[in-house]
């Protein structure tokens, strides 16, 4: 175990620094925060040495504004109590990410979800600028690789590990003796790097590899599908110039499926060709890369289907749409809503809907109430109204028929007269009146369904909701994501919940209760609580134990609380497949919504016309029954006199 030097006071060139917490540890040394300072860090060597001190002094001396801008330059030496140089102070780049986190699809979507290919081109261009300035100062990076290039959220690039750069004082050459084999120029393979003078061209090879990786979603330019039996290592492919995309040679390696060199402009393609040709004497310089990438950046087109797709305008169709389909994953993440474009678009759609002329707003036909007519009382209505009081008289007449036949005849005559009046009234007035009323009710019903302006209002409201949905695409996408994330990590959730024993609730519930829950219901941990299966009325366990509704609720609440805690502390991210799935769902829904909304004005206009026509038609149909009611209403009214 190495001692942690946190808290130690060290002397800088102009002031003293106190070491804070240990930030990172590598083969070369350790990086510490400095107490009270957020802008700078300290790097301490694991093995200080004389040569190091001279090199460091030289680097600090030549540090200028431009170099400080492109690299975490050493700012001051750090000396310990014995006046020995143990390290140096440099700019703090906390929050910056290594280059590989920028070119890897997954980490990019995690950390900078809205970066487009335009950003990747810019990062490549900024990297070229950094290397150019280092070369311009007469220095060589040497160990240029994906981990010591850092990228800010604004796509700015800085190099770190400056103390390993190759530099030269008047009498000494300080070489860089390390390199990653997959970034090492072919002519250096197999050579000892100790004491070897490296050139700008060596850096330019690594630069070309890193630019390729940045533009091609992290693929190494020499990685491909070998057409020979046996393994081909990256080093071998580099040495032999087996760049799978080359048109100059015939390498036994095919490009990885789906990856097209045509995504980049012919100018960039030529630069790659030149950089990866082992026989080519001069590799493109950092400056050449800078110029070409700047041109590429200025010639990007915007995909009409997906606003997160920027591509080289030399292509007819968007390559990222095709690639996302092919690989079935999201390469980029569209930004919905907040850009303002979406909302302007929705406003336009809604304005067109609002402009549709409304249908007529007439009142529907209504049945007429008989009581509103002034009754016309005739003999017939009066007789029919009299009704039941006749019955006892008929019975009395019938029983006395033998003794008073004349009375019986009178009774029969009266009954006959009554029935005659009743039938007359019913057939002449009541039945037509009722039929007309029914027709009117039927027409009113028809009105509600197919003629009322309310039909139009309901339809318009439905379109308004679709507008809202379209405008809230980002929220809907977030919901889709959350849904998928929760399904994908259900197992981890259950594992998390199973770590919470019901017995730990002993402080809140009584010991007997928790024991009963565990023993008779078999609920050991929070994972055994299934909110959907829990009955509101409580749970009956063995041995007569009954979990009351309150306790059930409390247990469910406990699980919910734990679940919330789990999700709020989890750092799960959707993988690019699921991200794409979620995006596709929203994109499809949006296409459907947009189609509906584009059609809406025409549909609504037609509907309004239909409704207005139907209103007129129904009103016309209602005229006849209304006339019937008006004709017979007075007689029907007479039937109900005194019946209220």
């Amino acid at each position: 175990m190495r001692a942690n030097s946190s808290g130690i006071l060290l002397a800088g060139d102009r002031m003293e620094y106190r070491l804070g917490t240990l930030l990172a540890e590598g083969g070369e040394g350790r990086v510490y925060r400095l107490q009270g300072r957020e802008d700078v860090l300290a790097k301490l060597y694991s093995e200080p040495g004389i040569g190091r001190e001279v090199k460091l002094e030289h680097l600090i001396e030549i540090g200028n504004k431009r170099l400080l801008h492109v690299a975490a330059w050493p700012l001051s030496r750090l000396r310990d109590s014995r006046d020995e140089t143990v390290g140096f102070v440099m700019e703090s780049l906390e929050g910056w990410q290594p280059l590989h986190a920028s070119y890897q699809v997954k980490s990019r979507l995690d950390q900078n979800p809205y970066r487009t290919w335009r950003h990747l081109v810019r990062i490549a261009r900024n990297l070229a600028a950094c290397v150019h300035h280092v070369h311009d100062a007469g220095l060589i990076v040497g160990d240029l690789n994906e981990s010591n290039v850092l990228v800010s959220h604004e796509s700015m690039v800085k190099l770190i590990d400056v103390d390993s750069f190759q530099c030269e004082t008047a009498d000494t050459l300080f070489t860089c003796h390390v390199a990653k084999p997959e970034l090492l120029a072919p002519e250096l393979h197999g050579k000892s790097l100790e004491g070897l003078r490296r050139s700008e061209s060596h850096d330019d090879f690594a630069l070309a590899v890193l630019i390729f990786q940045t533009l091609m979603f992290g693929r190494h330019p020499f990685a491909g599908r070998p057409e020979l039996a046996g393994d081909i290592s990256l080093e071998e492919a580099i040495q032999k110039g087996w760049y799978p995309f080359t048109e100059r040679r015939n390498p036994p390696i095919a490009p990885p499926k789906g990856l097209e060199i045509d995504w980049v402009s012919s100018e960039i393609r030529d630069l790659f060709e030149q950089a990866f040709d082992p026989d080519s004497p001069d590799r493109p310089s950092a400056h050449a890369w800078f110029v070409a990438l700047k041109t590429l950046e200025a010639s990007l087109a915007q995909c009409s289907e997906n606003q997160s797709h920027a591509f080289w305008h030399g292509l007819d169709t968007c390559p990222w749409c095709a690639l996302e389909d092919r690989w079935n994953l999201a390469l980029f993440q569209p930004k919905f809503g907040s850009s303002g474009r979406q909302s302007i678009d929705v406003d336009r759609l809604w304005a067109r809907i609002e402009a549709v002329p409304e249908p007529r707003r007439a009142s529907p036909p209504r049945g007429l109430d008989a009581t509103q007519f002034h009754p016309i009382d005739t003999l017939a209505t009066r007789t029919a109204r009299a009704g039941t009081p006749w019955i006892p008289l008929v019975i009395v007449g019938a029983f006395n028929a033998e003794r008073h036949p004349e009375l019986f005849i009178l009774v029969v005559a009266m009954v006959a007269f009554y029935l005659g009046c009743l039938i007359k009234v019913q057939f002449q007035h009541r039945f037509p009146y009722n039929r007309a009323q029914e027709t009117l009710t039927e027409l009113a019903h028809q009105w509600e369904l197919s003629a009322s302006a309310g039909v139009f209002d309901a339809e318009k409201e439905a379109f308004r909701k679709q507008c809202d949905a379209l405008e809230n695409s980002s929220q809907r996408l977030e919901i889709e994501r959350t849904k998928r994330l929760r399904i994908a990590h259900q197992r981890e959730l259950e594992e998390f919940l199973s770590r919470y024993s019901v017995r730990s609730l002993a402080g809140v519930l009584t010991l007997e209760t928790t024991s009963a829950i565990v023993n008779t219901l078999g609920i050991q941990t929070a994972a055994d609580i299934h909110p959907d299966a829990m009955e509101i009325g409580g749970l009956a366990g063995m041995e007569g134990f009954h979990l009351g509704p309150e306790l059930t609720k409390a247990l469910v609440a406990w699980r919910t609380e734990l679940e919330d805690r789990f999700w709020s502390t989890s750092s799960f991210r959707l993988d690019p497949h699921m991200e794409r799935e979620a995006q596709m769902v929203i994109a499809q829904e949006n296409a459907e919504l947009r189609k509906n909304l584009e059609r809406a004005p025409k549909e609504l206009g037609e509907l309004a016309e239909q409704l207005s026509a139907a209103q007129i038609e129904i009103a016309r149909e209602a005229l006849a029954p209304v006339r019937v009611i008006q004709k017979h209403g007075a007689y029907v009214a007479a039937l109900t006199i005194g019946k209220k």
Partner: protein
Amino acid sequence: MSKDLDQVPLPGKKIVPFSNAIFAENPEPRCPCLLLLDTSSSMAGRPIEELNTGLVAFKDELMADSLASKRVEVGIVTFGPALPVTHFQTADTFQPPLLTAGGDTPMGAAIELGLAMVRDRKDEYRRNGVEYYRPWVFLITDGAPTDTWTQAASQVHLAEESKTLQFFAVGVAGANFDILRQIATREPVALNGLRFRDMFQWLSNSLQSVSQSRVGEQVPLVNPTAPGGWGSVG
């Protein structure tokens, strides 16, 4: 409890059907590491608990290095019986399984199964144009094989000779080191006590340096049998 004796596979994660798309989203060169873990009944109790804790620490260690988390691929085969528990996947998607002990020690079958998994995985790398480092196979056992192991041993020797993989054997107390010596070409290491955690930390560190090796920078493996290490000469 008899339930504990049943071998229950717990796959790390559902295998994503679009295998080539995994390489599309992460084309980093791979450093496959296969763990052959003895889960026979003699491992029951503390040994298997420590092994499980060690696996969790292994993932955490790998995750701490963002490049290693995308390059090192972990595959697990347990034996008692021989089962593929985790198919090769990078550390960032690897979920440490919860192993249970039970059954006998079919080490030979497990080695053969494991080597076949490594071969298949390498084919997949090749098909998808992804580079890879020489695979590591790490055998951990506390007993002796209960099946025939000579076939497995000759496969290991052949693979080591053709430099297609590196095979390491670790014996927990009770392991038959004579047989381990015949299977592995390297000297097997005896685990001190139950220091699985330290062992996995060492493994993670070694894989990190392998997966990011540099020309001119010597990254000698830290000798686990050095004083204070997790192992001793078996």
